[in-house]
């Protein structure tokens, strides 16, 4: 069953987050002193040598909710779906057809477990982070402007750079595996550096040099993909949380809810779009490296 791989993907992402970069502690102390969200997630407690941040707590809560929702909703598959199975079938089939239209029927059969888990997990964490109580319940101290919660119990999981970077790294490893499976080691290098277009003679010799240089640029851009993927998601979610906080302050004690309200709707939209962007970009990156294999014998007609 397809769904059995969802917990595995989630476990991989959360597991990597634990041993991810736990840097930026100095910056955290500075940022906590001023108003607004600190750029690094505060550490709640330690399990052995591993620091546990509030973003990690939310990651586990969301992972648990997703696994339970699937397991309890679709515990035993029925021929005629009823209840929650309707919802999950609609979601999975919709996603499967959507992805299949972009990356093709063969690739989607192979990679759907990862992209669907990624999308569902990112969109759930983004929306879960908007719930009242996330970021407002926790430990703090009385400040100049009322009680200031400096260590909330929960914090948007994607507002922690470790989380987004861990997901991008998991994808990067999978991308390499899929690329090698589709092309083979030689084909993989040929795909990156090889001359395309099938020109011979002197022109072909010149083109080999040109395509080798283009391949080097390609490698740099591929190496930067995890960075840009993780920065994009982290930047959007972190900026969103900061904006909600500023907008609540703008309205003061009585009208803070009103000034923040339109931006909550915007954050709902951003949460969905960023999950879609993360899934689409990773899917298209996979398509770009794997598509080569599917149309052999078409020399000079593609690229």
């Amino acid at each position, binding site marked *: 069953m397809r769904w059995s791989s969802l917990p595995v993907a989630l476990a991989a992402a959360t597991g990597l987050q634990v041993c991810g970069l736990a840097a930026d502690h100095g910056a955290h102390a500075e940022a906590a002193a001023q108003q607004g969200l600190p750029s690094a997630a505060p550490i709640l407690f330690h399990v052995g040598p591993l620091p546990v941040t509030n973003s990690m707590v939310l990651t586990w809560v969301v992972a648990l909710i997703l696994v339970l929702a699937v397991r309890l909703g679709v515990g035993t598959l029925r021929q005629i779906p009823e209840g929650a199975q309707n919802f999950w079938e609609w979601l999975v089939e919709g996603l499967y057809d*959507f992805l299949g*239209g*972009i990356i093709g029927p063969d690739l989607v059969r192979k990679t759907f477990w990862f992209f669907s888990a990624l999308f569902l997990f990112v969109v759930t964490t983004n929306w879960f982070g908007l719930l009242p109580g996330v970021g407002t319940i926790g430990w703090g101290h009385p400040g100049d402007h009322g009680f200031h919660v400096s260590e909330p119990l929960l914090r948007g999981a994607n507002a922690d750079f470790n989380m987004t970077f861990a997901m991008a790294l998991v994808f990067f490893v999978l991308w390499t595996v899929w690329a090698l499976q589709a092309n083979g080691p030689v084909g993989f290098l040929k795909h990156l550096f090889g001359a395309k277009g099938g020109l011979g003679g002197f022109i072909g010799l010149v083109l080999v040099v040109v395509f080798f240089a283009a391949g080097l640029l390609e490698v740099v851009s591929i190496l930067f993909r995890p960075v*840009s993927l993780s*920065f*994009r998601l*982290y*930047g959007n979610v972190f900026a969103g949380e900061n904006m909600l906080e500023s907008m609540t302050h703008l309205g003061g004690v009585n009208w803070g809810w009103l000034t923040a309200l339109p931006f909550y709707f915007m954050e709902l939209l951003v949460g969905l*779009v960023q999950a*879609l*962007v993360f899934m*689409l*970009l990773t899917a*298209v990156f996979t398509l770009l490296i794997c598509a080569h294999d599917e149309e052999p014998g078409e020399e000079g007609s593609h690229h």
Partner: protein
Amino acid sequence: MIAEMSGNIHVAAAALGAAIGVGLIGKGAAEAVGRNPGAATKILVQAILSTAFAEGIVFFALFLWNGK
């Protein structure tokens, strides 16, 4: 006047460029859907991907800067 400017000018420049880029993508996507409403889903995918690349520049400017 130029000499007095300091701070995160690079972020402002990146945000300006990304905003123009996203606006152009939106314009192109809206026009394309107007011409060919049947291809709306394919155009949406292209537009979202291009928007993601355009706005990625701002995050590079924001976070790949060590500050002074």
